[in-house]
Every structure is written in C-alpha cells, then in structure tokens.
C-alpha cells in the first residue's frame, strides 16, 4: 500500500464537483439544467473510475484487437475508489430524483463520502441514511452503542483473521499451483474460497459497522448469512446488500426492470450483473463472473423459483446446497488470475478424480480450517440467524452475553488467528 498525496487531491476534487453538481441540480427548476448538472456529476465520477480502474484493460483490448499500439500505464488504484464513487453517484442521482435534499455543508458532505470505517471497502452507504446522522449536532457516544459495536467489530475480526485467513492458506496452496493439484483438491480449494471471500468481505463489513457503531453511527447491513439462501436470487438479496441494492435501484430499474416482458427482464438482469462484474475490475474474468450470476438469476426467473422459505428441511438443505455449488462455481472466475487458469481448474475438477491430499498443506491448517468453520457455522446457525447484535443486547443479560462473546472471540483470534494473513480481498476494488 502506498500513500500518494495527489490522490487525496483527486478525491477532494471529485467531492467538490459532486457537491457543486448536487446544489445546482436542486437550484435549477428546468429539466435541462438539472440534467446537465446530473451529467456533470456522473461524468466526473465515472471518468475518475474509468481512468484508474479500466484504462489499462481498455488499452490491453485495444492493442489485442490490432489497432495502433497504445502504451500501458502503471497506475496504482486509489484505495476504495469503486466504493466512494458509487456512494457519490447515488447521492447525485437521488438529489436529481428529488428523494433527498442537496447537502449545503461541504464538511458534512465530505464526511459522508470519506467516512473512514467504510471508505475502503463499503458498505456503500446511502445519503438518506448517513447524512442525517452526520448532521446531528448533539451526537453522543452511548454505552449501548459501544457495547454492540465492540462485539460486532470482534465478530468481524474473528471472521477475517480466524476463518478467512486460515482458509486462504489452503486456497492459495491449491490455486497458486493449480497444475500441481488434483481436481478434488481444487474442488475443496474452490469451496473454501467461497467461505474465505464471505468471511473476508462480511468480516470487513462487520468491522466497519462495528467501528461506526462504537462512534454512534448506524450503517446499513451488508450481509445476511447469504449461504443459507434458497436461491441465487435470494443470495443476491443477502450478499453485498449495499452493492446489489445499488445495482437494482440505479441499473436494473433504470433499464426497465421486469416491466417490459420476459426477454427484456432477462436482458436487464444480464446487463446489471455484467456491469456488477465489471465494477469489480478491468478483467474478463470478472465480466464472466457477472455473466454467470446473471445467467443463474435469469434461469430462476424463467422457472419462477419461489422466494418463500420451504417448510421441509430436506428441500431447504438441497436448495441451500444448490446455491452454494452454483455460487462457488462462479467464484472460480473471480479467484483465478486469468481466463485460461479458470478453465484449467474447471477441467481438472471435472476430469481429475484422484483423492484429495487434504493434509498436504499441513495438518495444522486443515484441522484449523475444520475447527474454525465449525465455530463459524455454529455461531451463525444458532445465534446470528435468529438474533442481531442489537436484539442480543436487548435481552436481560444481553450485555453480559456480548461481553462473554467478545472475550471468547479475542481468545479465538489469539489461538487460531492467522497473524500473517493477506489484506482484505475487496481492498483491491
């Protein structure tokens, strides 16, 4: 990670332009003026995003297509760019739609875009939730907020350092040398990556939400135990909620949603997910990942898969298993560094049936993975599936329970935490 002072200036400049654009949108009474400033706001953020995130991807494909060779630039992506760009975009669009008022105080608006717990990897906060909280002058840190936020932060830390970083040892071991491993090993690696990315990203979200809560701010939820979903459609309502709801509100609905017939609905779903994939980075792998998710969503739409929770536990389990398999399959493209690597891994999974040497990465690692996974699943199944941290705090001995949970989580981090784990996966976006 580098600190480049110029990037702070770029961030301030985009904040200033969006701040100005939103005020102008509000002040203009004519549609043309409003649209013009909306366009300024959108172009401002999109240009910054394109330059830093997609310029090299565009150049690579331009050169590959045989046009005049253009130079590849060594650009370092400003941390959290994709997140605060989407946050700014939603603000300008909401002001244009008349759903919120433009913020007149530059300091409050800057704080909204750059609020530190969620600046680097979300959740992508909406102006109607965060701006009123930032504007409250008599902001106080309460014991209840601190207690809930503290436990929430530690739960996130546990997910990241204990579960995700432990699983990552096996995932890296298989994926980094995929030609060296059997299909079954790669299959286990893929399933573990599904767990890793969930714990890594939702762990970060928990820490961000917890940190903000300790300071008295309430962020929106970003994950709702997504692997317990009964369909891919439901999964996307429970996974990275702030992004999926953003895409629903500003892309899917703008494209026409499900209002213009079946074929257009499928097209809109595919388009939304393709853009969602592309949002993750300039790589065809992300585009394919988005396309696969779009395909599953369209398929479920075509078969009118019910979103109701089935009463039979066998049906419940089978459908959750389908979701895990389908989503894990799409993660192969997300985790692989190149398209050919992803294809090789899929080929191996379906053709190389040698029994996995599960202990090959070290006895400690696989035992640790099993143990930490058991802890995670038990906690999610028995506690967090039913009760939120706020609900737990509201019980008679809730505060004691959360204190005990915090102690337990710290002990787990000390004993099982991977102290040399990698940085958060979503920091690269």
């Amino acid at each position, binding site marked *: 990670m580098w600190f480049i002072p110029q990037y702070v200036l770029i961030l301030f400049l985009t904040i200033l332009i969006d701040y100005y654009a939103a005020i102008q949108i509000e002040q203009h009474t004519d549609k043309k003026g409003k649209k013009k400033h909306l366009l300024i706001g959108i172009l401002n953020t999109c240009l910054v995003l394109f330059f830093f995130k997609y310029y090299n991807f565009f150049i690579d494909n331009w050169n590959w297509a045989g046009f005049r060779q253009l130079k590849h630039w060594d650009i370092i992506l400003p941390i959290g760019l994709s997140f605060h760009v989407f946050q700014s975009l939603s603000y300008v669009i909401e002001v244009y739609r008349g759903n919120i008022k433009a913020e007149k105080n530059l300091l409050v608006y800057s704080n909204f875009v750059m609020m530190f717990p969620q600046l680097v990897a979300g959740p992508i906060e909406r102006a109607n939730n965060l701006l009123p909280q930032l504007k409250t002058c008599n902001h106080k*840190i309460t*014991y209840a907020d*601190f*207690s809930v936020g*503290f436990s929430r932060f530690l739960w996130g830390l546990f997910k990241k350092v204990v579960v995700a970083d*432990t699983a990552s040892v096996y995932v890296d071991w298989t994926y980094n*040398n995929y*030609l*060296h*491993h*059997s299909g079954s090993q790669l299959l286990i690696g893929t399933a573990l990556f599904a767990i890793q990315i969930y714990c890594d990203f939702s762990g970060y979200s928990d820490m961000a939400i917890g940190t903000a809560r300790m300071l008295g701010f309430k962020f929106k939820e970003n994950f709702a135990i997504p692997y317990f979903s009964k369909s891919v459609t439901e999964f996307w309502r429970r996974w990275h909620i702030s992004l999926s709801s953003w895409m629903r509100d500003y892309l899917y609905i703008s494209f026409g949603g499900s209002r213009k017939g079946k074929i257009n609905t499928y097209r809109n779903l595919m388009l939304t997910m393709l853009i969602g994939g592309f949002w993750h980075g300039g790589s065809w792998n992300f585009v394919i990942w988005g396309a696969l998710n779009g395909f599953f969503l369209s398929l479920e739409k075509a078969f009118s898969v019910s979103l109701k929770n089935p009463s039979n536990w066998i049906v419940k389990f089978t459908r959750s298993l389908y979701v895990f398999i389908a989503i894990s399959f799409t993660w192969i493209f997300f985790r692989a560094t190149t398209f050919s690597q992803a294809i090789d891994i899929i080929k191996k999974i379906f053709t*190389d049936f*040698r029994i996995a*040497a599960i202990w090959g990465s*070290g*006895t*400690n*690692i696989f*035992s*640790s993975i*099993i*143990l930490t996974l058991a802890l995670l699943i038990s906690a999610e199944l028995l506690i967090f599936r039913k009760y939120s941290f706020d609900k737990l705090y509201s019980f008679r001995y809730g505060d004691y329970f959360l*204190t005990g949970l*915090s*102690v337990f989580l*710290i*002990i787990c981090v*000390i*004993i*099982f*935490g*991977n*102290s*040399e784990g990698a940085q958060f996966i979503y920091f690269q976006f």
Partner: protein
Amino acid sequence: MNKIIIKIAAVFAIVFLCDRVIAFIFEKYIFEKTIAKGNVTYLLKRKTNIDFIIMGTSRAEFQFNPGLLTAINGEGYNAGASGAGNVLYVSLLIDIMINAKIVPKTLLLQLDAIGFVKEVTNKELIPLYPFYDLSPKLQLYTRGLGLPERFKLLFKMYRFNGQVPGIISNFVRAKQTAYYNGFVASPDVFDTTKRRTLPYPENVSENFIEARLTALNSIFEQCQENHIKLFIVFPPTYNNNVYRQQDHLRLLQYIRSKSTEPIIDMADVRKFKDLQSNINWKDANHMNNIGATKFCNYLNDSLMQYRASTMKPN
C-alpha cells in the same frame, strides 16, 4: 464514558486471565504430554538416546531415514519440519536444544540454495514459539519483530497460535506410538502426467537474505562451541525442480569461506540416475519411501567415505 472504559478494561483483564488459565492447562496436560509426529517436544523428551539429529525442512523429514544411516554410530532422530526448518529455524532449534541440555554428537543439516533467497516470515518460526522461555536467542529475535509481535507474545496462548489442532491430534496419536524416529515414509508416487513440476518461484531475492546467512554462521558457531560434528547435505529434487546452479555454487562458495565442515552435495539429480524416475518421488520436491531409501544409501556411502578418510593415518 466511564462505563465504556470500565468495559474495555474488564474485557482485557478477563482475556488476560483466561489466557493464563487456558495456557497453563493446555501446556501442562496436553502439550507436555505430546510425544508424537515430528514434534520438538518429542525430541526434547528423548534427550538421553539421541546421538545424531537431522534438521531441515519437509525435504529432510521425508528423505532422511535415521535407521538407514548406519555410518553414524548410535540412534538418530529426524527433526525436519514441514512448512519450517529453514536455517533460521534450525539455528533457534539448536539454541532450544542446548538450553534443554540436549547435545547430539552429530548434526546432519539439510540445505537448499532456494531457502536462502526466500524472505523470512514469522510463520516459519511459530512452531518454536511454545519453547519461547527456553531460548534467549528466540526472545531476542522476536524483540526485533516490532511492537505488534511483542504485544501478541504477551498472551501465552499466542505461543501456540495455529498449532492447537495439530498438537491435540498429536496428543491423541501419541498414545498409539511406542517408538518414533521422526522420518515420514511416504507411499505416494508422483504422477507426472497429471501433476506438473512447480516453476522456480518468482518472488525471490537475487541476493541471499542476510538474516539467513547470519543464522547459518550462528549454526557453525553453535556446533563448534558444543562440539557437535556438522554435516551439510544438499539433497536433489525431481528434474532439478528447485535447483538453480548459480545460486547453489554461490552458496557452496560462501559455506566454504566460513566453515571447514564436510558438505555432501547431491543437489544435482542428473548425477544420480536411479533417483531421476518419478517412481522415487512423492511430488517434485519430496521423495517417497522408495526414493528416500535410495537417497539414504547414497548418503550413508558418503558418510562412510568421510569416516574412512578421517580415520586414515597421515
């Protein structure tokens, strides 16, 4: 605000207390009773019977069978360590051993040049953290790792970080193990049609890592001070997988400039025809039991030759 400060203080006090209690119980009733597979505790407990020790990485663990090394008199133990065992680890392990009053007559040190171009990570030393109190050298080393590591080491259970499941599994298995010499005999055969050899790692340094060279020099000194006969062994890899001639020769030159201890150089597999076939290998870097037996016979011959040459009257 007072309530918040009290809560933070209470949580950390309870964590500290729990850490001490859990560490005490774990150490006394599980860890100290663990005498199984490739474990340093096992080595420390068998102190009276060990005449020679093999140290190194997993390549030592899978390839050096003490039972076949008859050229060295006495009973041997293979202390090769998977995922660790580089020179820095070895240097600290020798310090632990010596402080636990274990001084073997002979030490077979497995080395690879590639081990000297890889950056040092804390991970490779964590298996030695449970013996933190036994090694002033390890304590000194961790002091140099910065404040976060020193803070983590305030918690006694951190010394077992990431090792608890393995230790418990060893603890359970120990009851079934009557005798163990540390060697891991693998029956697997390297299937070259499905598994390719790994490329030489790209993220390695051009020069040898200073900390590793310092550790190697420290091993020389430790052996000299404690009258341990040191043999340096460079084993081969399948298809010379991790063998890079220029690095290897540079390391040999360095060792010869610092020490007169014998070097048994088998790094280039092209010199050993019957080790070249994949039937000798478990994977590109580790031999299976067939390969290990052949390799140990070669090694034993070299040790025998060395013994004969040193016994010759001038």
